């Protein structure tokens, strides 16, 4: 599919995939594609950060390659690894051939030399196990690379990633330098568990996604919940948005709003009441104390009333 023509184009194409967004979100996405710069997305959990990369891949008809970060993630998990077992297996199976090869040599030194010449056979691409980063670099067609939850990785990995992202090339000692045939579009997401380095921020475009506005979230719910009544959707979203202002231990995400709306539809609820709330609130809230607080303090009356 063709590149985006404008931020409006982004909004339309995302909307075609049921992802509702405004110009605040669309402009950075449009610009990242146009400028081929990585996009750093921050925001509270469950506002659709990861979704952006998926939408981007779909809208542009590109493959999505995902790298999930976690503490202790290192190069061998992110970039590449040699398949030692395969190498060993091949060595064993080719034993005779190697023996033949070495038969003609006279001294041990010559044998080592002869073997050395065949080195490249064992350190070739066949024995290389590409991990997401290398996969994105080696891909012949343009791809979208999602580096999810970069804040969970260690500082060292962040600096390493910075290096890869700046010129999209990787040096593998045995093979030489591999350079990307095309520049992947890179989306990085972060939950702000850790402060990312200034250097990384400087190189990226930045997008902070907050919880959507009332109208936006109603549209999202209507869009994602088939068979929901518009009044109920309004009530649901108003209730959820109220809860988000109440400093809960785990504020409800958009995904949970949708789940809850779906649950209410399944339960045949027409409007919010204390009964429907008590039977379905655990879909929305995932913390026992939060649930107790809501049921006790009667926020349901305010929101539903």
């Amino acid at each position, binding site marked *: 599919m063709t590149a985006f023509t404008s931020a409006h184009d982004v909004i339309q194409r995302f909307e075609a995939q049921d992802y509702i967004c405004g110009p605040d979100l669309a402009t950075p996405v449009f610009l990242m594609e146009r400028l081929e710069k990585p996009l750093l997305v921050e925001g509270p959990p469950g506002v659709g950060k990861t979704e952006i990369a998926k939408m981007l891949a779909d809208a542009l008809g590109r493959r999505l390659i995902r790298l999930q970060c976690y503490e202790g993630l*290192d190069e061998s998990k992110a970039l590449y690894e040699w398949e030692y077992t395969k190498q060993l297996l091949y060595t064993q199976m080719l034993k005779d051939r190697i023996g033949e090869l070495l038969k003609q040599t006279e001294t041990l030194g010559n044998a080592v030399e002869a073997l050395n010449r065949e080195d490249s056979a064992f350190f070739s691409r066949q024995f290389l196990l590409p991990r997401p980063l290398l996969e994105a670099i080696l891909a012949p067609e343009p791809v979208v690379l999602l580096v999810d939850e970069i804040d969970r990785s260690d500082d060292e990995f962040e600096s390493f990633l910075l290096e890869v992202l700046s010129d999209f090339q990787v040096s593998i000692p045995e093979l030489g330098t591999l350079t990307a045939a095309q520049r992947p579009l890179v989306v990085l997401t972060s939950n702000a568990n850790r402060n990312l380095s200034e250097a990384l921020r400087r190189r990226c475009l*930045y997008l902070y996604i907050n919880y959507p506005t009332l109208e936006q979230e109603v549209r999202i719910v209507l869009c994602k919940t088939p068979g929901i009544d518009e009044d109920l959707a309004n009530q649901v979203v108003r209730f959820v948005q109220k809860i988000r202002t109440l400093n809960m231990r785990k504020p409800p995400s958009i995904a949970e709003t949708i789940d809850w709306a779906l649950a209410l539809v399944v339960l045949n609820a027409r409007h919010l009441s204390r009964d429907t709330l008590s039977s379905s609130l655990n879909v929305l809230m995932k913390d026992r104390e939060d649930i107790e607080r809501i049921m006790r303090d009667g926020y349901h009356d305010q929101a539903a009333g």
Partner: protein
Amino acid sequence: MIKRLVEFARTLRQSGVRVSMAETLDAAEVLRHAPVTERPAFKASLRTTLVKSHEDIPAFDEAFERFFLVQVGGETEGPPDGHPDLDDIHDDGEQDIRRFQDEQGEAMAGEGEGEPADGDEPDELEGELERMLARVQVGEQASDAVTESGAQPNQQAEDVDLYQELPPGDVDNLYEAVEELARNLVTRKSLRFRKSRHGRVDIKKTIQRSFRTGNLPFHIIYKHRKIKKNELVVLCDVSGSVWEVARFFIKLVHEMQNQFSRARSFLFVDRINEVTDEFDSRPFEDTVENLKDDHALNFFGLSDFGRAFYQFHDEHLLSLSGNTVLVILGDARTNWFDPQDWVLGELNTRVHQTIWLNPEPVQYWDTDDSVMSKYSPHCDHVLECRNLVQLKEIGELILRA
């Protein structure tokens, strides 16, 4: 027009947003692609390039509204105060960028000679640009210097003397700083774990294992270096002013607790009181403030180290082992009670290491009722503990122990 952008970047810097030269250039580049006549898109374009942290977004919004006083209706062509029209920005943006880059190069070259060399007599505008850029660069260097010193919001937090009464706002900031410090310490520790995991190939085991697969070394077995986890026992004197430091130390221990097989905390004034489980159920800050009201603690009593140690010896001696790191935080001011230092000696023989942290400045140790020198022979380390730098060193020491 690039001038407007540079000025805007400077306005942002003045309101505390860190904007680098590279980012200003990015913003200029971006404006070639974005429809600058549409205010929301224009704003979003600038924001995505100039602001890289959500804390700065309010400052940006405010500065943007102040700076680009363009009417949304689009009827007024010339904004007040001679602000150039937004269309201008678009038209000669490209040209400006090139000039901007040239100027930048020149200004760089001219650096060190004081004034930029003006051999070819630049016209008035260019002269102004150059002066402006020189200013920008000074700002740039300053902000770089800040970046290099590892500046986070807690830049000065490191030097704050913790051994005094602090206003509540500062306390919260310091808690955050301690949290970050703990995170750093823990990451470093986990890195060590990781390195040790990538051990060398265990030849012996690999060969043994290969017998199963017909002498094919099919499974490679690595040597795992085990890193033992210590048990941490903390005894905190919380009387009077020691409390001010104690809470930060407890916070640090709390943040690092998963690095130990077990971390137990005891508070004492004249009696000892275990608080290990208190922190599990509620947020840390609330719990800490509530501890003061705990009657078992006798918070406003006179501290009696000897009695507290003796009680600990009596009740918990058997729970100490060769893996235990015992950390005592206190000013060693016994209020002239019997220090009973032999108890500490006996505790020390049971544990792996004993570390004493004293929040008082070293020169006050052993003055008046302080008996630091009585206790110190029974400790492996005796350290001053009154600011975050020291707290960090202590954290490292405890993790290494």
